[in-house]
């Protein structure tokens, strides 16, 4: 994998990622699944102390479960799960910590929009300061994403939350919508920060550090909308010419994989939402179920206590169900959704690679038809061949990395789901067992008193 402008000796992120961007233990020893460059740097990086600096920084925002946190009361999230499974001999080395929080509404004459506070803390040399705090709106994130795509057409740029949610009754500015978006934006930036190449992107740095007016003026400098549109049209045209016949087998494999994966992940997303809905309906009915027993106990004498006991058990199970639902919506649903978006992104990346190859192929075809101007063409073709090779390598490496992360994410998320359910059943079990114990004690007391004359 190419790393542009990276200073030597800088700690390389081990390629793992996640909401808190921890280093994931790879399937084997560090460096097996990564490019040669990374392995070399990792050797420098390994023998280190457990740096846990900057952690209390995030204590303010306890809702950010995805933050690096080694505290015992760690909220349950994929990243904290990874923390617990971390191998002690592969310490976390991050020099860039980002949080997104504090959504605020801004009302102008023309529009209403939300800005989010983006806080960055870093020890990197190329940053003038070690701490930055800026406010960004969704548009700014969109801009960043498109700049990254422009600069690295065959790298896998993390997904952004959608502009609107079509399904459900979530309004544009409802608290739930804003919170979901905030979490997704936080994840977006952290995934970029964890990416070995994207983390050093200049636009990314500007996004994190520039004041509002600076960002606006920087944005205007980029290639205009028209030229970007022109590129798109050309790209579409060249893809039509199709590089599929010349596509290296590896990328066809990836394409086939992604087609199936995309299908499955979409299904899982639907299933997970359906489960959430069923659990919520169940919870609503349970809320009514407990109190009926209490009402009944008012007409009874002998069995009043048993009835009240049942009522309280049902209420406790009800609360446990609420927790289970929260677990789903905090972990499983966002991750599955992210990977639904990822599958779209990957199809896009594969297409762009095909387009780059398409450019080369069409030039080669053109050369075959013109025997003159051969030299001119060869130079151009040489450049294009390089471009294709760079694109292929970049994609291949990023694909491997993505696959690793996906596996990690899925493993930790579903393990978390299982644990959530375990916790739920264990809590309910304890409740009912203690009720049962109280009842059988009563029975024994009754039997004893019957024996007495």
């Amino acid at each position: 994998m190419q790393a542009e402008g990276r200073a030597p000796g800088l700690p390389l992120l081990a390629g793992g990622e996640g909401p808190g961007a921890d280093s994931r233990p790879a399937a084997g020893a560090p460096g097996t699944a990564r490019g040669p460059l990374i392995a070399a740097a990792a050797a420098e990086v390994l023998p280190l102390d457990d740096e846990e600096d900057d952690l209390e920084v995030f204590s303010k925002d306890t809702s950010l479960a995805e933050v690096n946190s080694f505290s015992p009361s760690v909220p349950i999230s994929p990243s904290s799960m990874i923390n617990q499974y971390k191998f002690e001999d592969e310490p976390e080395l991050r020099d860039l910590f980002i949080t997104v929080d504090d959504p605020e509404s801004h009302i102008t004459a023309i529009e209403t929009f939300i800005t989010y506070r983006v806080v960055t803390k870093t020890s990197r040399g190329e940053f003038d300061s070690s701490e930055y705090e800026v406010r960004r709106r969704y548009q700014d994130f969109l801009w960043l994403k498109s700049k990254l795509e422009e600069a690295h057409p065959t790298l896998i740029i993390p997904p952004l939350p959608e502009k609107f949610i079509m399904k459900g009754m979530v309004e544009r500015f409802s608290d739930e919508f804003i919170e979901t978006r905030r979490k997704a934006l936080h994840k977006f930036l952290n995934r970029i920060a964890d990416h070995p190449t994207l983390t050093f992107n200049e636009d990314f740095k500007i996004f994190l550090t520039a004041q509002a007016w600076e960002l606006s003026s920087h944005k205007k400098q980029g290639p205009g909308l028209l030229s970007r549109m022109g590129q798109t049209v050309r790209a579409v045209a060249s893809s039509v010419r199709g590089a599929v016949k010349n596509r290296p087998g590896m990328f066809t494999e990836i394409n086939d994989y992604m087609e199936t994966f995309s299908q499955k992940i979409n299904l899982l997303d639907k299933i997970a939402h359906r489960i959430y809905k069923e659990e919520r309906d169940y919870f609503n009915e349970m809320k009514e179920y407990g109190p009926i027993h209490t009402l009944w106990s008012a007409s009874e004498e002998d069995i009043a206590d048993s009835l009240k006991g049942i009522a309280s058990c049902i209420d406790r199970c009800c609360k446990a169900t609420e927790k289970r639902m929260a677990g789903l919506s905090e972990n499983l649903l966002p991750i599955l959704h992210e990977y639904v978006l990822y599958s779209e992104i990957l199809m896009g990346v594969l297409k762009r690679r095909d387009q780059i190859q398409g450019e080369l192929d069409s030039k080669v075809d053109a050369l075959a038809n013109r025997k003159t101007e051969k030299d001119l063409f060869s130079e151009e073709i040489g450049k294009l061949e390089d471009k294709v090779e760079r694109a292929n390598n970049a994609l291949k490496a990023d694909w491997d990395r993505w696959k690793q992360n996906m596996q990690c994410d899925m493993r930790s998320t579903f393990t978390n789901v299982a644990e959530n359910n375990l916790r739920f059943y264990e809590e309910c079990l304890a409740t009912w067992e203690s009720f049962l114990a109280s009842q059988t004690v009563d029975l024994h007391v009754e039997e004893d008193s019957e024996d007495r004359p």
Partner: protein
Amino acid sequence: RAVESQGEGQCAPVESLWRRYSEFELLRNYLSVTYPHIVVPPLPEKRADFVWHKLSADNMDPDFVERRRIGLENFLLRVASHPVLCQDKIFYSFLTQEGGWKEMVNETGFQLKADSRLKALNATFRVKNPDKRFTELKHYSDELQSVISHLLRVRARVADRLYGVYKVHGNYGRVFSEWSAIEKEMGDGLQSAGHHMDVYAASIDDILEEEEHYADQLKEYLFYAEALRAVCRKHELMQYDLEMAAQDLTSKKQQCEELATGTVRTFSLKGMTSKLFGQETPEQREAKIKVLEEQIQEGEEQLKSKNLEGRDFVKSAWADIERFKEQKNHDLKEALISYAVMQISMCKKGIQVWTNAKECFSKM
């Protein structure tokens, strides 16, 4: 008396005798009329009530028929274990006599003894001094009926939702399996986790079937509430009857006195007409007084026996009600405990499945 459970019901195979549901109804009606002071055990529902979507509302559905069969068996056991009812000859014949049972029952002429609903309703509204305990019991039975039916309705809805939660997890199994086909390292973990999700989804069927038995136990007491009310109604009827008889006696005595003394104390049409159309002859008056005196004597005897009847009724009814209360408390407590046991078993199953699933996931 040892009583074997009888198989019965319409189209169900049977042990010794065939009995239709309608014959059970006939038996119960007979018992209710013949022993109005007893809280007669109720029959299970004729039609499926409180169903949730998986449960069929079809009366011919084998599960429903089976549960009803068990309910009818239970009814017979209750009657057989009742100190008074078990001695009834008609009940005995129900269990032992193949043919002609229906005729036998009708020959007892019990239908004639039955109180009309209208009469009973009238009594409920007009009675002046019912025994307070019966009034309280009536309120209790109303409350019991209302709360149990509410509980059963909500329970059915909860069961429906729980079913949904479990069954949707079954979809995981299928998708995991399909997904595992394209994965190298994750494949095994996904596949086996999917299997556990299938197990989880399937487990709800047994869980809810067991819960139906619990619901049936509650239903029995829902119907028992009606039996309690029947006893209260009988008391009200008897009390009203008594009050009416006493009233009638008092007015007859008054009439007699008036005729004898010639004074008209209360306004009466007779008095007015006699004023208008002339008094009766002394002979006529004598005859009337004599008739009245006879009636009064009859009336006093009747009142005495009615009073006695009433007191006996209250005494024996209350004895049975105490017996019933103990039975109810015991049974319901047991039912609630069995509900807790069911929940515990459900939780344990859940823990097992998700522990297995977690292991599979962590190996992905």
